[in-house]
């Protein structure tokens, strides 16, 4: 139950056990952060599904339309009755979260970040501002070779307009590869997992891009350092 917050990706690709799936669906009903996370994951699943699309055989459509004429829809009442225990579960989970405090939820979401930062082999790299960046900001890259994960931590970043986002890049011999997007909080602080594996030989950089990110950097590199 205490890891419900990181189940959205597994749910999206169908990698949960039946018990995890039921628990997560109940949890979803009351957890907006998880709904948002799932919406993002589902965009990827849709993109994958559409990239796998093939022209269905002729006649399939006609047969399906004929079948639905004979197949009654299952009434929502029957379905809802079946899912009521799950709704109850959600209510109980919501109360539990309230009782344990909002801090728990934040902690769970940030557990992966914590794991990297507290890893025995964590390496911290200071990422200085370039000429285009704000020298008043402080950006650090922390990565753990054993966990193959990295985290960006930043303080006093300039906030960006809502139609823009910070984007991280790992730059190797093949050019820049997106390492994820982030938006600092109102205080200009950020602490986010990096997509991909930071490792020596790569350069880590940060740009500002239009909302949703760019496949390749279009803005000036504001902070950069060799990993």
């Amino acid at each position, binding site marked *: 139950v205490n890891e419900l917050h*990181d189940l*959205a*990706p*597994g*749910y*999206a*690709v*169908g*990698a*949960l*056990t039946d018990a*995890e799936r039921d628990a997560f*669906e109940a949890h*979803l*009903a009351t957890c907006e952060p998880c709904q948002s996370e799932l*919406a*993002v*994951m*589902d*965009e*990827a*699943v*849709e*993109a*994958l*599904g*559409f*990239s*796998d*699309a*093939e*022209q*269905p*055989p002729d006649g*399939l*459509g006609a*047969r*399906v*339309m004929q079948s*639905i*004429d004979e*197949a*009654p*829809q*299952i009434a*929502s009442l029957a*379905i809802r009755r079946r*899912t009521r225990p799950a709704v109850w579960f959600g209510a109980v989970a919501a109360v539990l979260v309230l009782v344990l405090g909002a801090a728990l939820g934040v902690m769970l979401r940030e557990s*992966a970040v914590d794991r990297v930062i507290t890893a025995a082999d964590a390496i911290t790299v200071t990422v200085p501002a370039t000429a285009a960046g704000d020298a008043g900001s402080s950006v650090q890259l922390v990565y753990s070779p054993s*966990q*193959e*994960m990295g985290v960006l931590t930043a303080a006093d970043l300039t906030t960006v307009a809502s139609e823009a986002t910070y984007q991280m890049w790992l730059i190797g011999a093949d050019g820049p590869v*997106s390492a*994820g997007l982030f938006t600092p909080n109102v205080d200009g602080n950020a602490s986010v*997992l990096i*997509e*991909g*594996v930071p490792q020596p030989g790569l350069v880590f950089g940060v740009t500002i891009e239009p909302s949703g*990110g760019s*496949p390749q950097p279009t803005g000036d590199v504001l902070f950069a350092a060799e990993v």
Partner: protein
Amino acid sequence: MAEVASGSRSAFSDVYGLMSGPVFGTIRKIVRDASIAEEVAHDVLVEVWTKAQAWEPTRGSAAAWILTIARRRAIDRVRREQASRDRDHAAAVRDTTTPHDAVTEEVIETEERVLVSAALDALTDLQRQSIELAYYGGKTQDEISTMLDVPLGTVKTRIRDGLLRLRTTLGGES
């Protein structure tokens, strides 16, 4: 989807127009045989109609929900065929090979991977394997962790990172 749930045939026809290609293509990549894929796709699309009222927006997008039903039914079908093959050949197959799983083998097989996942080329090996095993193979995170011999937390992170990257690399196509 709400209109489909209220019994609108024409709304369902729109859903068919949008989703039959992805549904059929996804199923065919899992079951391979085109006529079995057609049969499974038919059942899946009828199930979308009969269960439309079970779809809830809090549980994600309607398209993803439909694709999930498609994958689940296709994987069930492969497992059922494998089970019946295993029964038929029980005596003959009692050799020294390790226990195998048809879906996983088919997904991992190098040649097949080219067919399944050109879309996944942008991912790291661990991201791609984790997503393939779950998405096309029906494996749970725990099973993937054991199969690939990496910690569960790493599997979860790799699936998430892989999906985020797919969203960036494929996002423009749909």
